[in-house]
């Protein structure tokens, strides 16, 4: 059975760039443990090591993938048209204060 500790969830939250306050963390740890216990029903499944089995995409009528032709789309003008603020190939955003502290 998967044992989940608060410290582990705190580490995962750091990886996910997610602040969680200490009061919420306790409840979240309990819920995550519950969910992981539930999905551990997968323990008996023989893994293919992460490879996608061809049977997932097999179908009698599935069309072939599209060609990989490079059509030469000039990307920056498209982005410039879509972005609220764009200059010299960069998106302009509100200044990130305190950036120099990192």
């Amino acid at each position, binding site marked *: 059975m*998967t044992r989940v500790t608060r410290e582990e*969830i705190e580490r*995962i*939250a*750091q*990886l*996910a*760039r*997610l*602040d*969680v*306050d200490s009061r*919420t963390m306790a409840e*979240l740890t309990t*819920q*995550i443990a*519950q*969910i*992981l216990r*539930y*999905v*551990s*029903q*997968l*323990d008996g*499944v*023989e*893994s*293919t*090591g*992460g490879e*996608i*089995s061809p*049977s*997932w995409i*097999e*179908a*009698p*009528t*599935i*069309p*072939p*993938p*599209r060609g990989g032709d490079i059509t030469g789309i000039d990307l920056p003008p498209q982005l410039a048209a*879509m*972005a*609220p603020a764009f200059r010299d190939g960069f*998106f302009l*955003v*509100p200044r*990130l*204060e*305190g*950036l*120099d*502290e*990192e």
Partner: protein
Amino acid sequence: MTGIEARAREAADRIAASDATGLNAVVAFDRSVLMRQASDVASGAASPPLAGLAVGVKDNICTLDYPTTCASRILQDYRSPYEATAVTRLRQAGALIACKTNLDEFAMGSSTEYSIFGRTRHPEAPERVAGGSSGGSVALVAAGAADAALGSETGGSVRQPAAFCGVVGLKPTYGRVSRYGLIAFGSSLDQIGVAARTVEVAGRVVSAISGRDPNDATCADLPPLMLSDPPADLRGFTIGIPREYFPDDLDRGVRTACARAVDRIRDAGAAVREVSLPHTPLAIPAYYVIAPAEASSNLARYDGVRYGLRVAPERGGVHAMYRATRGTGFGPEVRRRIIIGTYVLSAGYYQAFYAKAIAARSLIAGDFQQLFRDGIDLLFGPTTPTTAFKAGAKTADPVAMYLSDAFVCPTNLAGLPAVSVPLGRAAGLPVGGQLIAPLFDEAKLLAAASVLERCLEPQQDIA
């Protein structure tokens, strides 16, 4: 005023009226936008196929006339610079984009209770949920305020609320409809679906929005779906009834409604066989590994830098800004799923969870493919294990909430098309049953669904 403009005014009145009842299906609506669209359609030379059809759009699908918030604080005032291909095609077909509809935040939920706009109520039983995550779209249609609505499915989020609210909910094959402009949750699962009061309208909408799209590499290289007139009966069809969809603890009313529907299917001339989808019990566990894993990647873009909410602490620099923005901007269910997704993909746990989940997915897809190879044309079973549950009944227990998708998420994992149709009522609440077809066989799916729809009395209390 033209006929289309008159229809638009009626739709606007109905939408406003539904809001006044506290339904809370609509999150953005502007009467002048709707009337302007109607004027444009009416002044066009051609007679487009969906002329004047008022269609709601789930608020995780990008539109230009309204914000796209995903019912999340992190996108609360976000205005997309582009619109979804499905929305463009609706407009080209003459449909009117009626409003944006409520949803569970980032489409993560089964009740439309996880929304910054508050929950959407069941249109007939306000103390109950409308289902989710496309609860707003479905409730809007069920309340008669829109002719149809776009929703999205990752794990049953059109069919489940459709069953709860007594309307048709159609999920196309993965790749049938472009995902360009559908804000990503689980990229290998997401698909735009349709809620409508009839199979015919749902089919017409999917036809209009389907077809190849160079902006979506996962959209099948096929022309738009063409549908014929439905057959008179089901002679020549073989319908499989999966025993795993009728567990001992299935709600009695749902079981009775499905049994009656099976009788109607036989009466319509179909051969009926009991079949097995033996890996069905793995579907929810596999889904709640794969979908959160993909979500943890897709939602990494919400970091406060370029768009959306930014929460900037006084100290700590840009990483502190990421953490504070995301910690403040995401609600509890989204946070849970990001944590689960990050966990199952992390070093040391990938093989134990994610690798096994995708292996299970292949087994689940293989079950369906084997039956279709063995001569089964379509599968039939309940859409949901119960009728609509009471608001608040499952929010404290995430796993209990997840189990309400037990019969819908296998089809999402397998990429198959499926449609829920109203079967009748149990103790006054709607019951839905679903047909499931092979990949890209929406024509057969909707043909059978049309026949079944004709054979049933959705308003009748039968259990």
